[in-house]
């Protein structure tokens, strides 16, 4: 991309993407990220992938306990 006045480079946009998805950036930074995304296809791809990665991490939550762990921890709680 070319440097235009007030535009942020890809490195800066990428650095902010996750916070942008979290809506944890200031209104000024949000505008800068969106301005960058409006013309940078690569960073749009980065944004979409950041969204996927975030969902991927969130989906790793708690499963059932393995039976031997469940037995030991429940016994521990019962003995408290």
């Amino acid at each position: 991309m070319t440097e235009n006045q007030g535009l942020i480079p890809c490195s800066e946009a990428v650095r902010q993407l996750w916070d942008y998805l979290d809506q944890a950036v200031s209104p000024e930074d949000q505008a800068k990220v969106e301005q960058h995304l409006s013309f940078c296809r690569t960073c749009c791809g980065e944004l979409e992938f950041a969204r996927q990665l975030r969902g991927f991490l969130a989906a790793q939550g708690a499963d059932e306990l393995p039976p031997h762990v469940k037995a030991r921890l429940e016994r521990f709680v019962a003995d408290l």
Partner: protein
Amino acid sequence: MPQLGSGIGGLMVEVQERTRESFQRLASAELPALYWLARRLVRDGAEDLVQEALLRAYRSYGTLREDTAAGPWLKRILVNVFRDQLRRQARSVQELPVEEVEDFSLYQTLVEQDPLPYSDTLHHDYLRAFGKEDVREVLLRLPELYRAPLVLRYMDGFATKEIARLLDVPLGTVLARLHRGRKRFERELWVYAQETGLLKGVVQ
């Protein structure tokens, strides 16, 4: 039994109402969440971490105002125990040089290397190749410094301010470590798949 404040009638009544059985019921319900959080934070000793957290929680059960808030409360205690363990180990974990991790983009690497040439949804299918144990292995390749904020923020949903408080580091440090942790995680997702031949089993 929880420690009773001497002669404080109101507290005694409260403690009496909060019976041992109610703590056990509440703790039992949270065991899976606590165990899986602990497994992401430490390679070995997840059960010990949970047990230590339960002991500590039981001792301070009187400070929990609402049992409905038990899940986050127990997780916070577990993170405190984890932090204390790290301090006891007193290992000096080196911050990674910024330039070492910040340039890597898994998104771009996948585009360039195209490891699943017959996939129409390359990035999605790449991530799908990772089972939960694979993800854990990738996470465990990150130093705790980066792993803990990443796990707490994106897998357990803690706010960055709370992570700063729990880990006892400034908010700016948490934000920087989150960024580097994400980049390091991306890179390790790539390296792990290369090293283990993970994609060979994926129908292409």
